[in-house]
């Protein structure tokens, strides 16, 4: 059985994995770059080892350094989190060679699902619906034009090795076909060293719905229902919820069965996610499989009541799944928002820097997974996500109200964050009513842009408070120099004077 796990990651996900290790009585080991010496995952772990300089490609992405650290501390297993090496088949293989358990699927599963075209072929074979399109990589323009005419416009051209929106082109009209394909090919070559592209029917205004699966090494595979992830900005998820507001029990059952079939097709054994695109009539198509834990896994944990990291570790320990499909049900409604260090009122400009002050939202139905603390300087080298706020309530309506309340109470100063933007999402009618697709953000600009609606009174209160702070600092300096005491009258609250005279 696994007794010590090295977590090859940083930030909130490293801590989230270590929490489960601690509950299971497993020692946790942090690895850190030089920029992360004071990061919370180093502080939370039982052990910690430096694996190189700040840039990820000199630390968190260097397989040799991570393997070295794992051997030095005699870790039985490595958990890769998400991002970094989590979907690197070479890393999974290397772990196996070194006799270290990789907590994730086999390199075969990662490789098969990592290449879009191979994945598509597997899914066709497994009877999982895929978006109409090419089943082989295309390099010649003429062939591409022929295929596009068969499928019918609009289509999406995608890099075969791609991800994250790179090497993608949407083609609406015939005249765009040739330049579109060429642009996608050259981007794909630059980004992934491979100019193969493939072509898919473009689903207009789609929903992005994914299914969580868990599979063990004994042939058991279950799904943990769906997550609705259609609120996206530049292909990055911003808000996720479960259940999906547009789902029906019948479609859920069918999609769940297809998700299980997809996982089985690659002999999957760990936690994984099958992403589908879904049109307004609930026609759904396999998009890709993420062969790792997802950022948004907590909403599933909350509604289904399963600790996904614990299940990953149990599967890595060769244990059979402890849940059967019929044991699981969706209980209530959960929503997650991602808090980024960025300025939503200034084109989402990244905002690294020093966190002055945090007030975390607490109370009934609120989960907060973060890693920053007061006085912590958010480094500029990594992903700007600083925390995730997850709420649960018996109904969707109440969950939205609870998220508003939690965002109201959540204060981080010193850096700009996306909290105000997320509050506006929670107040946008289309979101409140559950009528939205992946065009939500572009379709709802009037609700999502900052408003200059402050009253005279609130502006005056803001100005007065700043002024009082300024004056009190001047007075306190004067007082210190005159009598050596730094006690300021301005802070002398709670004294015996009656405060309610006014």
């Amino acid at each position, binding site marked *: 059985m696994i007794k010590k796990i090295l977590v090859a990651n940083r930030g909130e996900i490293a801590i989230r994995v270590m929490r489960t290790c601690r509950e299971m009585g497993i020692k946790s080991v942090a690895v850190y770059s030089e920029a992360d010496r004071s990061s919370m995952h180093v502080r939370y772990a039982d052990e910690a080892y430096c694996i190189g300089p700040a840039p990820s490609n000199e630390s968190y992405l260097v397989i040799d350094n991570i393997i070295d650290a794992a051997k030095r501390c005699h870790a039985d297993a490595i958990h890769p989190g998400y991002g970094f090496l989590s979907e690197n088949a070479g890393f999974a293989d290397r772990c196996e060679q070194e006799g270290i358990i990789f907590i994730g699927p086999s390199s075969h599963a990662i490789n098969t699902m990592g290449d879009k075209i191979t994945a598509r072929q597997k899914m066709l074979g497994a009877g999982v619906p895929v978006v109409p399109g090419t089943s082989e990589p295309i390099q010649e323009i003429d062939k591409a034009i022929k295929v596009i005419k068969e499928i019918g416009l609009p289509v999406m051209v995608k890099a075969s090795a791609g991800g994250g929106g790179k090497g993608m082109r949407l083609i609406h009209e015939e005249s765009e076909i040739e330049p579109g394909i060429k642009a996608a090919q050259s981007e794909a070559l630059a980004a992934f060293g491979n100019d193969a592209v493939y072509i898919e029917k473009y689903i207009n205004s789609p929903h992005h719905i994914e299914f969580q699966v868990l599979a063990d090494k004994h042939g058991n595979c279950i799904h943990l229902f769906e997550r609705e992830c259609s609120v996206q900005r530049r292909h990055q998820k911003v808000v996720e919820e479960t259940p999906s507001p547009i789902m029906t029990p019948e479609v859920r059952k069918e999609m769940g069965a297809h998700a299980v079939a997809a996982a089985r097709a690659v002999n999957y054994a760990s936690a994984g996610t099958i992403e589908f695109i879904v049109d307004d009539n609930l026609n759904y198509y396999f998009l890709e499989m993420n062969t790792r834990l997802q950022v948004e896994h907590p909403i599933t944990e909350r509604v289904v009541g399963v600790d996904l990291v614990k299940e990953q570790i149990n599967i890595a320990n060769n244990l059979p799944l402890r849940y059967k499909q019929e044991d699981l049900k969706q209980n209530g409604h959960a929503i997650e928002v991602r808090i980024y260090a960025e300025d939503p009122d200034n084109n989402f400009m990244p905002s690294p820097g020093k966190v002055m002050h945090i007030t975390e939202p607490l109370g009934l139905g609120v989960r907060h997974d973060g890693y920053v603390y007061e006085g912590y300087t958010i480094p500029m080298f*990594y992903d700007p996500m600083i925390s995730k706020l997850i709420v649960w309530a018996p109904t969707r309506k109440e969950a939205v109200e609870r998220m508003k309340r939690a965002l109201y109470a959540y204060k981080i100063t010193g850096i700009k964050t996306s909290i*105000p933007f997320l509050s506006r999402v929670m107040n946008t009618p289309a979101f409140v009513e559950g009528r939205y697709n992946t065009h939500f953000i572009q379709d709802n600009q009037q609700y999502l842009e900052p408003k200059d609606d402050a009253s005279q009174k609130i502006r005056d209160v803001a100005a007065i*408070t*700043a002024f009082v702070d300024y004056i009190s600092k001047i007075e306190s300096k004067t007082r210190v120099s005159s009598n050596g005491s730094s006690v300021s009258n301005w802070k002398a609250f709670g004294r015996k004077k009656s*405060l309610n005279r006014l």
Partner: protein
Amino acid sequence: MAYEIRIKDNQETIEILNKKGSLLEVAIGDRNYKLDIVEVEKGVYSVLLDGDSFNIELIPVENKKYTVNTLYHSFDVDIIDAEARYMMSRKSAEDDDQSTISTPMPGKVVRILVEEGQKVKAGETVIVVSAMKMESEYKAANDKTVKQVLVKEGDNIDGNQPLVIFE
């Protein structure tokens, strides 16, 4: 004690008329307020006004500049004393448009697209800076000539650090 305060584009006089412990009477412009103001955490004030409770967070930007966060809004506030008034009058006289390029946040210089002495057109990208896996392009606001490039590609930079100076 002749202070003015600027919030958004409004500049008005401000004066503390009276104080007793945490209770204050303040005049701003032609409005008078009686408030109960307490600093509850470093930089965080609890303000009661006519029974309403406000949590106000102050982030000092410079000596006399604050970013002030209220529940739903964020304001930039400048305190203007005699010194500040003098500085402002000088500044507005000598340069009225962008003469340096800098970034609001720390990051790393990815690409520099200009050389010293080069003429650039309005809207032309001058420098590309990366932070948190995102690249941002910084462009010239007007037609200009580059006087000095203060950084090189690969440099780590601080927020508000001058990167490129125009003539």
